[in-house]
């Protein structure tokens, strides 16, 4: 249960990963002992022909490069920056409405906003390929402790709406859709309604009490065809309301992305908080700031959405732009039982494939059957594991089947 709102904007040191899940090569632009300013480009990371900048999040000195665990549970190179006293920050010039789309795209890229959400269906904020629909999610569900009061959304409703509008303009998109929760409090809904009403943004209400892959369904309705695991293939750009707010900041005020809000929850921690965090802060520093762990024991550290997020092996990783929630909870042993073939995973699957049958085929090593069952359409949303009454990790079996047939 989130009870507090805190800030942690002045870390002594930050560790910024140079690469991530998609961009796996980096060329560093600074050297050891160089002085850097917050918002300055310290490296470029590459994925094929694409390149995107890595920004320094504090002003200070580069003290070295370290190989560390990142939030994707991989060991990658990090740049270490030690803070100096100055609070300088590089800002760009604010832009008005009448700027060409190309300049907005360049600004979003320069401010380090390319990758903001990586869980589930979220796509990168990328404009290399044609985009027809903008889909923005204002729902912030971090089970098992859903308690977010949507204060952020309520306060920044206007800015979020403007961010969505900017995205639509930048991508030349036909439609812009905002997904809201039926159970948001009325003020938030009203604020969002007011902000979006004259901007041509369609608002879709969903019921988050039913965990059934609503974002997949909405995306499918938008394009009216079977959608692929990467929504960009279906000309949909899907991102969160947080990204929309930061896009507004980047374009209108020229602020680079150097801090973000992170929800840190879980019963292993003394307090659950919404944190404003400088990017590059280690989780262990945040936990120290919160007063440490409850008591010794075995914990699970889970980054991102509770269904499709990433399990991390230690708490030493640093918060990046793609970390929206962190859950540290005690590990509860739940025995895996035998599959009773109830077929609930088959019913819930938003992609309409049959996880139970795929698992069966994988257990029997029948490649032809795995191909027949459209295994490649799996979007790895994790709903099959969520509904399984026997607590089998169905998703893992489907992943194995996917890997087997390539």
């Amino acid at each position: 249960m989130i009870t507090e709102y805190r800030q942690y904007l002045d870390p002594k040191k930050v560790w910024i990963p140079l690469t991530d899940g998609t961009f796996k090569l980096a060329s560093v632009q600074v050297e050891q002992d160089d002085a850097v300013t917050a918002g300055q480009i310290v490296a470029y990371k590459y994925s094929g022909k694409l390149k995107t900048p890595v920004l320094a999040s504090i002003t200070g000195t580069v003290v070295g490069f370290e190989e560390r665990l990142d939030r994707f549970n991989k060991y990658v190179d990090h740049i270490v920056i030690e803070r100096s006293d100055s609070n300088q920050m590089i800002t760009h010039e604010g832009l008005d409405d009448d700027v060409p789309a190309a300049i907005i795209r360049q600004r979003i890229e320069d401010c380090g906003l390319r990758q903001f959400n990586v869980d589930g269906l979220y796509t990168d904020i990328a404009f290399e390929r044609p985009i027809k629909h903008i889909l923005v999610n204002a729902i912030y569900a971090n089970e098992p402790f859903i308690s977010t009061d949507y204060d952020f959304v309520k306060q920044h409703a206007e800015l979020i709406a403007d961010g969505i509008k900017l995205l639509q303009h930048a991508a030349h998109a036909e439609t812009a859709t905002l997904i809201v929760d039926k159970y948001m409090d009325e003020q938030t809904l009203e604020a969002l309604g007011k902000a979006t009403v004259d901007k041509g943004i369609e608002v879709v209400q969903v019921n988050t009490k039913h965990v059934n892959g609503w974002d997949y369904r909405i995306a499918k309705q938008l394009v009216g065809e079977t959608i692929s695991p990467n929504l960009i293939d279906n000309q949909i750009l899907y991102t969160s309301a947080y990204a929309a707010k930061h896009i507004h900041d980047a374009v209108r005020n020229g602020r680079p992305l150097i801090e973000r809000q992170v929800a840190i929850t879980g019963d292993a921690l003394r307090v659950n908080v919404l944190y404003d965090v400088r990017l590059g802060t280690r989780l262990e520093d945040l936990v120290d700031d919160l007063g440490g762990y409850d008591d010794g024991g075995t914990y699970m550290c889970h980054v991102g959405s509770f269904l499709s997020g990433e399990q991390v092996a230690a708490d030493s990783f640093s918060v990046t732009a793609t970390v929206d929630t962190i859950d540290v909870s005690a590990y509860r042993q739940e025995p895996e039982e035998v599959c009773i073939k109830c077929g609930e995973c088959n019913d819930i699957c938003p992609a309409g494939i049959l996880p139970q049958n795929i698992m069966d085929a994988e257990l029997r090593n029948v490649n032809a059957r795995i191909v027949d069952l459209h295994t490649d359409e799996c979007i790895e949303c994790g709903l099959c594991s969520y509904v399984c009454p026997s607590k089998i990790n169905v998703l893992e079996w489907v992943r194995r089947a996917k890997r087997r047939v390539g």
Partner: protein
Amino acid sequence: MEFTMKKPPIISNQQRSYKRSLSLHISLIIVSLTAIFTRAFIAVPEGESWVPDQMFKTFLMLFTGALVSVLIELVYSISEGTSQEFSEYRRLVDPINTGLLIALLLPTSTPMYVLILAVAVGVYVGKIVFGGYGYYIFNPALVGVLFATISFATQIEYGDTPLVLLKQAIEGQSYNFELIDLVLGNYVAVAIGSTSVIVLGGVFIYLSITRVIDLRLSGTFVLAILIISAIVGFVNFGGAMWNYVFVNMITGLTMFGAVFLVAETVSSPTSREAKLIYAVVIAIMTMMVRILGTEVEGVVFAVLLGNMLAPFLNRTVTRSNKKLFIQTSVILAVVVLLTGFVLGFILQGRLIEAFDAMIQWGGMIA
């Protein structure tokens, strides 16, 4: 303090397989108790035995069924070296369920050695050989019951059950059924489990709410039986069709089958369309056995046939979508209606007549 990498979904919903089998367990016990108590007012044929005897025999059968089932699994697990598991009640739930089901599917007059053999065959051949709970392809209880009914046909005698009387009624005789008696379970039953429909209906609702049984299986089954029997009744009796429907729905293991046999998850298909087909096939088979077969109480045979089809049905489906689901439902509805009419006319021996009428009707339209 350390971090573990196990179990990626950090949360899952509240459904648990064990809770479900426990609900089923409780329901079976409730049905068993009802069956024992209804023996108190069922008339016993003269000179055979008296009522307390019947009640005790029923209790003894249920108890023995459960006990033998547990013992067989225990002996097997001792030979496997996993007998430690049996110290928890958790491990006993499924063996007891199977044992109770077999006992509930046999009539009270069954000799004890037949019951014990049925349980032994059901649990060993039907379940353990395939790898235990979750792996069998035929419902073990039905394997046991089938073995008993075929091998010991003379020992398993039941009197004139309502369905037998109903079949004779179609051939010209007439009988009076008391609706109250049928509802309370006061009739000569084919098996212990064919008891009061009120209790079975309550269990049906309870288990559907707790999602132990899938309405796409049980609901479709009940609906299909209802439609087919209504049509057959209408073709043969006209206005008195509801009597026919009531007897078909209330007696003869229909509700028992819907709750405990058709909805058995392990031996049924897993996808939506296949579930519908499975339920309808069982319903049609049940009605066919009732109307055309000599063994009128045919739910056991029908469900076993369905089990046989389940792997095939699973193989035919590669993905589920709304269109396919609606298509399947419509086709199945047509099949059910057609089956009803065909069965109804066969009963009257008027199939050819009906066929002629259809051709004439077609000619009139043309």
